């Protein structure tokens, strides 16, 4: 197996976790109710923990940099996160819908890695599975509650779904260079397969919540993030995230 292909895949997964984790953490102290403040803060901690585990695989198995340096010193262009996770939190409905779509995407991805030919993925898959269940449990419960609460909340959930779906579909941007190789080597089933499994997961929840999933054939996924093309929101986020670390990159914590 070619290390460059594996490295590319891991960076995409890890950067999504890191940036989504950072966005979740921005709800700390600002959640609409205390339980939600705690929930988004806890999920932030989980996501950043998952990013760290992935950066560690890069470091230990694939000759990559130290995880902290890799997370905090890289240039914006070297990040491979999807545009979905870069978007500012906006209002709570947007954040909640993003969390719902993102965590189901993560769930199908890590489930598929249970059978990966790359052994460190198998271990991650087992480790993350139970934790992700709590994330989707939380997301499903709140999507249902808010969609059924009153007309205003229903309308807001539907418009949040309309606003996030193309961005979320962008999670599954395949690599022109490495996709075939990773699939052939049995590392993972490929983005197209994961995309369909994801739709199968979110659809029943949306139906129960009486939300209408837009006709997916008319939705153009927002690609580009995986190739290093980002929204204007990533650069300031990275600056803020690395502010303390970059005061003294050689400091011992």
């Amino acid at each position: 197996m070619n290390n460059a292909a594996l490295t590319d895949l891991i960076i995409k997964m890890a950067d999504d976790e890191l940036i989504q984790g950072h966005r979740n953490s921005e709800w700390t102290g600002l959640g609409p109710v205390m339980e939600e403040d705690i929930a988004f803060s806890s999920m932030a901690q989980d996501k950043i923990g998952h990013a760290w585990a992935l950066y560690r695989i890069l470091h230990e198995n694939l000759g990559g940099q130290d995880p902290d340096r890799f997370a905090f010193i890289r240039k914006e262009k070297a990040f491979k996160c999807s545009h979905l996770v870069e978007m500012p939190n906006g209002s709570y409905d947007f954040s909640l819908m993003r969390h719902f779509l993102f965590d189901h995407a993560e769930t199908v991805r890590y489930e598929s890695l249970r059978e990966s030919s790359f052994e460190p993925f198998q271990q991650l898959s087992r480790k993350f599975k139970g934790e992700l269940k709590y994330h989707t449990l939380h997301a499903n419960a709140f999507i249902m509650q808010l969609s059924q609460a009153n007309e205003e909340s229903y309308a807001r959930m539907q418009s949040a779904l309309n606003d996030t779906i193309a961005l979320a579909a962008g999670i599954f941007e395949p690599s022109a260079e490495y996709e075939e190789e990773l699939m052939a080597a049995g590392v993972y089933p490929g983005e197209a397969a994961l995309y369909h499994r994801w739709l199968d997961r979110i659809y029943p929840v949306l139906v129960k919540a009486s939300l209408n999933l837009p006709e997916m054939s008319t939705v153009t996924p927002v690609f580009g993030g995986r190739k290093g093309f980002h929204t204007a929101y990533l650069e300031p986020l990275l600056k803020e995230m690395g502010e303390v670390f970059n005061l003294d990159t050689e400091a011992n914590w």
Partner: protein
Amino acid sequence: MSQTILIEEVFQSLEHVMDPEIPVLSVVDLGMITGVDIEGEGVRIRMIPTFAACPAVSYIQQNIRKTVEQELGIAVTVEIDKEAHWHSNRMTDAAKEKLKNFGIAPPQVIEGEMRAEIMLETPCPHCGSEQTYLRSPFGSTLCRAIHYCRSCGQVFEQFKPLE
């Protein structure tokens, strides 16, 4: 000193290393220890964190090393076991009893695939009632959820079941 006795002694010593977030439970109670090997003059202890992002891992690692070194006077290395992964069924029955007495509901036993329904009607650690509901799957630490007891009107925490 024979090797089997020494391993037993290491486990006895490990029972004095408490979880920093739940001080009534030791690392052995929690099922965090996955292996103890005698190597030459020292001992190698393997452990696993409960949740992947547990912020207390290196602190616990240090506590294990210091405690066992001090109590048994041998060199200790503590490693994170990458092969094993923690799940809540690893917690001993005695540990669950201690947890309940401490005021935290213990995790239910998971059989097969873990389902969300398992967390409904978690018995209240204060009054024992099953008239409870899950308020949030997230609590004050990564390993806890928040429930509400309709019978005694108290909010209580639970150590989450994790598969």
